[in-house]
């Protein structure tokens, strides 16, 4: 059974409005990292929202087609129980951090899952360790720098330990060390059998992804092997996704 399946997925913001997602079909297996790329406004973030159910339960738009998470149709899941199937790191860190300390922020998800305190402690320590945040444990998330906020938001979702992870551009504000730590964390999640979907503009940052989903104007153009797609410079350049400045 695939971890994520999208079948004939379409989405529009208003009934009768233009399609933001056009007939998207793809699947991501357990133990696989899929990167999603495309020009801004191509529907990447919307696709993320659809997969994690945020669209279905919280937005006014119209979604048709199907999204299955571990075989379960997201329409049939209660909004809160979706968190047991999928974890999502949103693009804007400021609207997803609300706790007084980094440690509390990370403990929030396992506390919601009713884990015993010892297990919560274990998950918090693992997440802090994996993303190199131990020194910021007592810091106020609201006062951190942009990149640090993203790391905390990711750590908070890692502690939820969902089978599917969706990340919307978490690497963009990270320094090299931060990018490496996130990459190492994602590879470890893959080895643990998780399915990871990561939206990213910077293709170097996700070159370790198993597959690359290329989107254009709401359509999914390709979902092949990352290495093969990246090697096809003509295709990528025509999509405006890579660019060689003239005269260099």
């Amino acid at each position: 059974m695939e971890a994520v399946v999208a079948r004939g997925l379409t989405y529009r913001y208003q009934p009768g409005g233009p399609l933001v997602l056009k007939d998207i079909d793809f699947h991501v297996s357990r133990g696989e990292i899929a990167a999603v790329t495309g020009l801004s406004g191509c529907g990447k973030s919307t696709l993320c929202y659809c997969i994690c159910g945020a669209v279905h339960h919280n937005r006014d738009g119209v979604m048709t087609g199907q999204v299955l998470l571990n075989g379960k149709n997201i329409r049939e899941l209660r909004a809160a129980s979706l968190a047991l199937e999928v974890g999502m790191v949103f693009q804007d860190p400021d609207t997803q951090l609300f706790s007084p300390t980094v440690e509390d922020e990370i403990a929030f998800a396992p506390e919601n899952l009713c884990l015993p305190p010892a297990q919560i402690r274990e998950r918090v320590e693992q997440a802090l360790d994996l993303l190199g945040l131990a020194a910021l444990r007592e810091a106020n998330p609201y006062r951190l720098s942009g990149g640090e906020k993203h790391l905390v938001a990711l750590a908070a979702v890692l502690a939820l330990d969902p089978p599917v992870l969706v990340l919307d551009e978490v690497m963009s504000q990270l320094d090299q060390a931060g990018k490496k730590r996130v990459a190492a964390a994602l590879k470890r999640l893959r080895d643990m059998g998780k399915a990871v979907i990561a939206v990213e503009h910077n293709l170097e940052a996700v070159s370790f992804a198993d597959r690359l989903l290329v989107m254009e104007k709401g359509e999914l153009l390709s979902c092949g092997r990352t290495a093969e797609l990246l090697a096809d410079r003509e295709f990528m350049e025509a999509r405006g996704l890579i660019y060689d400045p003239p005269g260099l």
Partner: protein
Amino acid sequence: MSFLEIDHVSFTFPRHDKPVLTEIDLHFDQAVITALVGPNGSGKTTLTKLMIGVLRPACGEIRLDGRPLVEYSLGEIGRRVGYVFQNPDLQLFCGTVAEEVGFGLANRGCQRETVEERVAFYLDYFELKDYGGVFPLHLSQGEKQRLAIAAVLANEPLFLVLDEPTVGLDAYRKRLLEDYLKKISRSGRGMVLVSHDTAFVDRVAERVVILENGRVIEDSGRKGKAADEA
């Protein structure tokens, strides 16, 4: 004399013991693109906020165009220095995209036709034409970032400070931004940009200043044009 001069500036947030910035000495000239780089939490954003007078240094002095920054009002600074915040959500406050781009000009008493003309130009250049009547916070992150940049550029400031301008931009839009920034620099205006995007910095910046733990640990000085002339 440089356009923006930072002399012996240190900064500590109230009720914190550890200084964010220590003894910063940097001068920025017109017509030079300087990149400010360094690890997360090294004090880059704080330094840019000091440069535009949103924060005041604990000690040391910052001078803009020869005059101490403290003598300017924020509005006067804003007419000279354009600042693009790290998070576009914090600087978009109008009801529509078009209003946002025209806000600075309209409120400084520019002719309506001039404002409309410039708004049209910037919406077109940053490919936001179709969104003129949309509520800014309804845009995608990449579109909001472009809008924030367009709104600041439409003011045609003498100097620019951009905090992570490429976040949320794809390769194609980055190139558009790169071209525009270079054009601004060629027209004699200088800028400082904070970025983790090494590829972008390599292509755009003529000078790279590296910050670590609140100190300048490396300053390449001006490469390229100045070095050629020397």
